[in-house]
């Protein structure tokens, strides 16, 4: 494996994503966990860029870093009174850790044996974002899922307002 700018940026973004993810699950202070989550989401946006999906990277930053993490941070601050809880994990954490490790072992074995050494077959077409937009608006493409997603978001918005109201 030769060292190219692509592999270096991949390594940096991967470290961001994995380090942030680890911070989310182990840090005792919830606000720190939220900041680690933002770091992880930025790293994942960078991974999307190394996968040549810039639209998804921008959407990731807008939706996750811009909206969801702000929502989570506000919720943490609203529920601040229980923030300084002494124990951050419950009694079954060793079993959970064992299960997660076991799952990673199975997944890693499967991935390496099925997809080992596979590299890029094709270039990304230059008009990818245009194609995405056309697929969203075309009845032969993804118009129906698009409408369903719109209804889902509307329902979630109304539901969140109703549930969180006094």
């Amino acid at each position: 494996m030769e060292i190219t700018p692509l592999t270096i940026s991949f390594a940096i973004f991967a470290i961001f994503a994995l380090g942030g993810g680890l911070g989310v699950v182990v840090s005792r202070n919830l606000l720190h966990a939220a900041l680690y989550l933002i770091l992880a989401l930025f790293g994942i946006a960078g991974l999307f860029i190394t996968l040549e999906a810039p639209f998804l990277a921008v959407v990731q930053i807008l939706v996750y870093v811009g909206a969801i993490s702000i929502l989570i941070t506000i919720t943490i601050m609203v529920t601040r009174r229980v923030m300084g809880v002494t124990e951050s994990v419950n009694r079954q954490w060793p079993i959970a850790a064992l299960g997660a490790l076991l799952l990673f072992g199975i997944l890693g074995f499967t991935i390496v044996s099925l997809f080992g050494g596979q590299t890029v077959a094709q270039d990304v077409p230059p008009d990818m974002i245009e194609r995405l937009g056309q697929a969203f608006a075309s009845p032969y493409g993804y118009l129906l899922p698009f409408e369903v997603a719109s209804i889902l978001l509307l329902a979630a918005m109304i539901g969140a307002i109703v549930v969180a109201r006094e």
Partner: protein
Amino acid sequence: MIPLEWYLIIAALLFCMGMYGILARRNAVAILMSIELVLNAVNINLVAFWRYGTTELVNGQMFAIIVFAVAAAEAAVGLGLIISIYRNRQTVIAEDINLLKW
């Protein structure tokens, strides 16, 4: 060029971290954050398989965008529920929320 399995390994690691967080954390907000990690791991997989498969098709990216929409809806409703529970019971610890438990 980066081999496909690196992306898949990173996604698997993130998924397992998220699963550990969902199972082990006590705070409901922390559990929601772990769910976001799991959804992001799935997104990395989708985009990686799109990039290393047929890039002419938009399916992989489209799936990832739908996951974004679902994640946004899930976060909004989940955090609304947490705030509602906090207002009624003054707790966000998942073990103490046992209203429906026999």
